[in-house]
């Protein structure tokens, strides 16, 4: 077994230190958002309002991970052509299917058992 490669690390640049702080900030924000979701659920129960708020928080968390952790803040222009059609399709698929699969039922009155 050979010794692991050791490389002398150069001092960190200001940009690298900035990235490091940003990663910590995003991590703490993600933890806070998770706690907020939990609090909304505990305080509001299973209501439409809590569902909307929790979904909004989930989208914020996903956006933070995508933009910062996945480096889309620098790579967006390079992958937009791949991502945009898929994202449109994802959202529209659920909306279009929801019309007949879910929303239409709300037009019918509840049937007594």
């Amino acid at each position, binding site marked *: *077994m*050979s*010794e*692991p*490669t*050791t*490389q*002398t*690390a*150069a001092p*960190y640049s200001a940009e*690298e230190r900035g*990235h*490091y702080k940003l*990663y910590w900030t*995003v991590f703490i924000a*993600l*933890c806070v958002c*998770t706690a907020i*979701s*939990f609090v*909304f*659920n*505990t305080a509001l129960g*299973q209501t439409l309002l*809590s*569902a909307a708020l*929790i*979904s909004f*928080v*989930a989208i914020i968390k*996903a956006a933070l*991970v*995508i933009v910062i*952790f*996945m*480096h889309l803040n620098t*790579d967006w222009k*390079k*992958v937009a*052509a*791949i*991502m945009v059609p*898929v*994202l449109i*399709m*994802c959202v529209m*698929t*659920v909306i279009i*299917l*929801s019309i007949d*699969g*879910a*929303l239409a*039922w709300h037009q*019918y009155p*509840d*049937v*007594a*058992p």
Partner: protein
Amino acid sequence: MSAAPHATDENEILMGIPLPNGKLAMWLFLVTEIMFFTALLGTYMILRNGQPNPSTNPWPTPHAVHLQEWIGAGNTFVLILSSFFVVLAHHYLHHGDPKRAIRYIALTLGLGTLFLGVKAYEYKGKFEHEILPGRIFEQLDGPNGYRYINHVRKQLEHIVEKDQASGVAKEKCVALLEDIKLNKLSPKQVNERVVGTKNVKPIDLPKGAADASGQLLSPIEGILEADSHLHLAYSIPWGNLWASCYFAMTGFHALHVLGGLVVFALMIVMYWRGNFGAEHAGLVENTGLYWHFVDIVWIFLFPLLYLV
């Protein structure tokens, strides 16, 4: 004609997206995974919101199917922390510090394993309570109702034989078993005695249990209210559909987590063999992209299943 020195062609057309091949390939793969999980999660959302009679026949609540929100929240924190560690690993490796980077990779591997361990614990609970697709009793009318009574009878006999209940719960178990043996109860009445009148969904209420306005008359305490740890089946409307969705979504997610863990383990082997350095920053970044995607899927799965 003399050969002129080659000059840079400023009008040279650059083909392809300006990304390393590996990164582009990973993004293309992630795009297909987005579609895959959109199908799963989108189907769940449509089924969840598409019940025709939500006031009488509602979708199962998390507690009805033995989901505990704090376990889901804990798992969410575990995955977020592992995502953060992957980012730090890439950060240090890019800077030329593979020793520190591999430590964070190892921590990520540990956290991913913890996530799967918690998931296995939850699955064990589901198996023990028979909250599995096709095994949940719903629609207590008809022959299915009498299969339910037989099943509860066997469970009660097991509880009484093994002396698994005590106090009030034991008395109720013995009383219910006697009544079942004497054929005194309908399936809905058995269900009511198991969970308690106030926990029975309107569609499963026995005749005479509520008045015309829905007010409960003479509610009774259920066995599971006295001891929630006893393994007794009860009606969960839409339970089989819920279980199918739950195992499909979390099962595929867990398989994706496992795939990521395999790659992290390979990185650790590479480091152990002395073949892991700054030149592998691309590998770590691409694996990190995959891991962040797995994290994002859970960010949406957790509220969908545990909270909403």
